[in-house]
């Protein structure tokens, strides 16, 4: 038996399994099934339409077109930033289906252009900030200019994405670092997002975020007087009476995408609050 003799058997098994997977997702969408489909789509996207993969591509394309038409892909993409890449891949496959109509992509197009679809901005920011810090140590870590990407808008428009977690706080901190290192002048153009999150933290009484965001707004992005008084009022209620750190952070803000332990966040927030208390007090008296 030659290796190529196995192709029909492998194809039959793959077809059977993919069909099951597609049905499973259609019947009861789950993240596991979605990512399993995504993993298959990744490799099929690299094939040059060989005869062997035609049935698999056909099944995947038809399913993707059906989901695009019925709105499932929009729901999935809006639900989680982690699903956006595979949603894009499935939209790409949907185009190869007979059932695809160009107008089917309209909602995804609007969501994307309106910046309601999450993109992972952190890798780009990480590269920029890493290069900026290493360059201060005489280490060249740039791989050329990052292009004409407008990072300030990219970050500020995160305010339009549903829900936030620690990932967003880290993105704002990185923005502030780039400003401080003189690599960017975002301070006047990144305003909506930190302010929106700060108000959310006031309203949800999240002292962990409140401390970090107040520090960032006081030092970099601006803190209007009316927001300052609300922040001071909240901060006072959480200040430890004796020697101690701020309370443990709320657990529902943890990010699946970056690792941050509660211990580190607690320490971070305590330091952040400590650093801006003087500013807050002075302006309060002023």
């Amino acid at each position, binding site marked *: 038996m030659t290796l190529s003799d196995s192709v029909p058997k492998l194809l039959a098994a793959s077809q059977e399994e993919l069909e099951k997977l597609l049905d499973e997702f259609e019947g*009861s*969408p*789950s*993240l596991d099934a*979605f990512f399993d489909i995504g993993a298959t789509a990744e490799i099929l996207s690299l094939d040059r339409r060989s005869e062997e993969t035609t049935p698999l591509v056909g099944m995947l394309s038809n399913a993707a077109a059906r989901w695009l*038409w019925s*709105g*499932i892909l*929009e*729901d*999935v993409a*809006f*639900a*989680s930033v982690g699903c956006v890449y595979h949603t894009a891949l499935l939209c790409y496959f949907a185009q190869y289906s007979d059932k695809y109509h160009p107008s*089917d992509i*309209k*909602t995804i197009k*609007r*969501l994307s252009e*309106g910046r*309601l679809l999450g993109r992972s901005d952190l890798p780009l920011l990480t590269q920029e900030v890493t290069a900026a810090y290493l360059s201060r140590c005489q280490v060249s870590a740039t791989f050329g200019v990052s292009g004409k990407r407008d990072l300030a808008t990219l970050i500020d428009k995160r*305010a*339009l*994405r*549903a*829900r*936030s977690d620690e990932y967003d706080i880290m993105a704002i901190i990185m923005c502030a670092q780039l400003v401080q290192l003189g690599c960017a002048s975002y301070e006047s153009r990144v305003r*909506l997002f930190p*302010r*929106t999150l700060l*108000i*959310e933290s*006031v*309203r949800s009484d999240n002292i962990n975020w409140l401390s970090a965001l107040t520090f960032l707004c006081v030092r970099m992005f601006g803190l*209007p007087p*009316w*927001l300052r*008084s*609300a922040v001071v*009022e*909240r901060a006072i209620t959480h200040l430890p009476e004796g020697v101690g750190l701020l309370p443990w952070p709320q657990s529902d803000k943890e990010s699946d995408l970056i690792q941050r332990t509660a211990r580190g966040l607690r320490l971070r927030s305590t330091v952040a609050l400590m650093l801006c208390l003087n500013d807050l007090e002075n302006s309060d008296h002023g």
Partner: protein
Amino acid sequence: MGETTCLSFEQAIKTDRYCRALGDIYFNNTAAYIQSLFARCCLATTPGFNFDLRKIAEDSSRIAKTVLSHLNRDELAIDPLLVVQIRLILMSAGMDVAILRELVDLIAGELAGQGEDIRTQGRVRRIASLLTSLGYVNDVLEPPGDTLRLLDNPAVWLGLPTAQLSDVADHFFADKVGLDDMSSQIMSLVALGELRNYRLDFGCKLLRLVFSQGVICLEANEALNFVALQRRRDGGYGFVNPFLEAEQSEGDKALSLHLPATLNAVWLFRTKALRRSDGNLGGCLAC
């Protein structure tokens, strides 16, 4: 600050069809039917659309009859604010639907019979204010003293629980007083936060207040964008998280998410369009 195109004429027609279809499916669910009817009223009377209101008048007559003939109306859980708003919109278009008037008479009577503690609540004052516009002799009581102090202190709004801030917004609607720059910014930012966390009804309510009576700012326009982009291909609004709500049927999703989201979206777009068309700063009656 980018200008937002909330809704084209074609999109409005599609959304109207969507609301009508939901109304037909859920005619027996009176509260949902009234929501769909009010959404249609909003679409029909958004400046620039001017849809025919006759069918809406007929449908409002039909549903009012159903409500009035029901043995236990409380069970229907209808929103009196929406009923009064529908009446107001139809009356503004010169359509006096007799049986709808009867229903609103009933609401006005029930409101007048409430105690002071109820009649000084924001939402009740708001309904009373609308009834006054419809010609009912109905005192809109002053808010209690601590509420008045709250209304004058926007910085405190940030820390208010949702129900209390919602009450503040209702008092502003009831009194039709303008929001200054700072109050508008606070309301818009809180609205944006609520919208991102998918509390669309509350977020849209605060935004309607800003667009009808406040200073339109970048924050308000961005929040409006967020709502406009919730549009689905079927003309409805709102995205579901399929991984969290898989156990819900399509019908459940329509009633719990899409219909309220659609109603809130078109109500907001109408409010914005009215503001643009007449520069109204004193609060429009049906916002």
